[in-house]
C-alpha cells in the first residue's frame, strides 16, 4: 500500500500532465499577514467584480478556508479558469497575548487563537486537494521563515506548480530580490496586492504557470 502511494505521489504530476483539467484548483498560501486575502480580493475584483473576505492588520483574520469557483483569467490570448482557495495563515505558534496587543479583550483573543489553530490545520489539509499554489510572502520580511520553508517543501514533495508572490512592494523597505535569492528554483512575481502594482505581470504568470 505504501509503495502504491509513493508511486502515485512521485508520478502523479505525469498523470496530471496527460489528463490536464480545464479547471485548476489553486490555493493561496502564506504566513499570517502576508496579504493572502488582499490578493484573493484583488483577483476576484478584477475578474469577477466580487471579493473573497475581510482583511485586517490583526494576524489570523482569515480563520476558515474560502473557496471561489470558476474565476476565468485571460491574458494575451491565454486563459485559465481557476477555483481559488484562500487559506488561513500558516504558523507554528499561536499565542492569544499577541492579539491582545491589538486591543482585543482576553476572551475574544482566546477565541481567535482557538479558531486560528483550527484554520492552520484546515490549510494543511487543503494541500492534498490542490492543482497548484500561489505562495504569498511579505517582501518587507525575512523570507527564510520555517513556515515558508515548510510550505515550499510540501509543494515540491507533491510536485505541484508553484508561483511565489512577493507582496507589499509598495512599502519602502520591500525587497523582492531577497525572496528570489531565497527560493531561486521557483518563479517570483513582485506585486502590491493592495495598490495593484505589477498585477498584470502576476496574471500573465498565472495564465502561463497554471494553464
Amino acid at each position, binding site marked *: 500500500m505504501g509503495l502504491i502511494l509513493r508511486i502515485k505521489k512521485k508520478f502523479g504530476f505525469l498523470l496530471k500532465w496527460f489528463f490536464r483539467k480545464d479547471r485548476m484548483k489553486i490555493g493561496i498560501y502564506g504566513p499570517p499577514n502576508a496579504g493572502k486575502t488582499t490578493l484573493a480580493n484583488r483577483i476576484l475584483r478584477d475578474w469577477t467584480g466580487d471579493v473573497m473576505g475581510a482583511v485586517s492588520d490583526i494576524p489570523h483574520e482569515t480563520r476558515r478556508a474560502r473557496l471561489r469557483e470558476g474565476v476565468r483569467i485571460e491574458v494575451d490570448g491565454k486563459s485559465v479558469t481557476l477555483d481559488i482557495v484562500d487559506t488561513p495563515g500558516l504558523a*507554528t505558534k*499561536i*499565542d492569544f497575548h499577541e492579539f491582545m496587543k491589538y486591543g482585543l479583550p482576553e476572551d475574544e483573543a482566546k477565541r481567535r487563537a482557538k479558531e486560528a489553530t483550527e484554520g*492552520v*490545520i484546515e490549510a494543511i489539509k487543503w494541500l492534498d486537494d490542490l492543482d497548484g499554489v500561489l505562495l504569498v510572502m511579505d517582501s518587507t520580511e*525575512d523570507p527564510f521563515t520555517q513556515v515558508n*520553508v515548510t510550505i515550499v*517543501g*510540501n509543494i515540491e514533495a507533491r510536485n505541484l506548480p508553484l508561483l511565489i508572490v512577493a507582496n507589499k512592494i509598495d512599502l519602502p523597505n520591500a525587497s523582492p530580490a531577497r525572496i528570489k535569492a531565497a527560493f531561486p528554483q521557483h518563479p517570483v512575481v513582485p506585486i502590491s496586492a493592495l495598490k495593484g502594482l505589477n498585477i498584470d505581470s502576476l496574471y500573465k504568470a498565472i495564465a502561463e504557470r497554471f494553464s
Partner: protein
Amino acid sequence: MEGVQLNLVSKDRLDKMASMEKIRMILDEVKNGKIVVLESGLTPEEEAKLIELTMLEIDHENFVGIEVESYPQKSRGFFGKLFGKPKGRLTVIGPANRLKTLQKREDLITALVQFGEG
C-alpha cells in the same frame, strides 16, 4: 545546575523511527520545555504533520506552539525528484516561549534559547 535540556537525536535513531513516532517524541519533549536537535531532520510531510499536531495541542495557557529551525531542502533535479527520497536537514525544535529565531539564512541559523519562560 539550572539550564535547558537539549536532546540531540542521531540520524541512525531517526531512521529507525516511524513518522508518527518521531513527531510524538518531538512534541512530548518540547512540551516538557526541552530543545530537540534532529541530525537528519524531518521530511516536508512530517514537518506539516508536526505543525498540524502542534495546533491540536496548543492549550493557550502553558503551550503556545513550537519554534522550528531548519534549512530549505536542497534542489534534487529531475531524476532526484523521480527516484530519490527527500532528505531532511539538521533541525532544531523547541517551545515557542523558549526558542527564538534571531536570523535565518540559507546556510546559517542564529537562535536564542531562553532559560526562564519567555
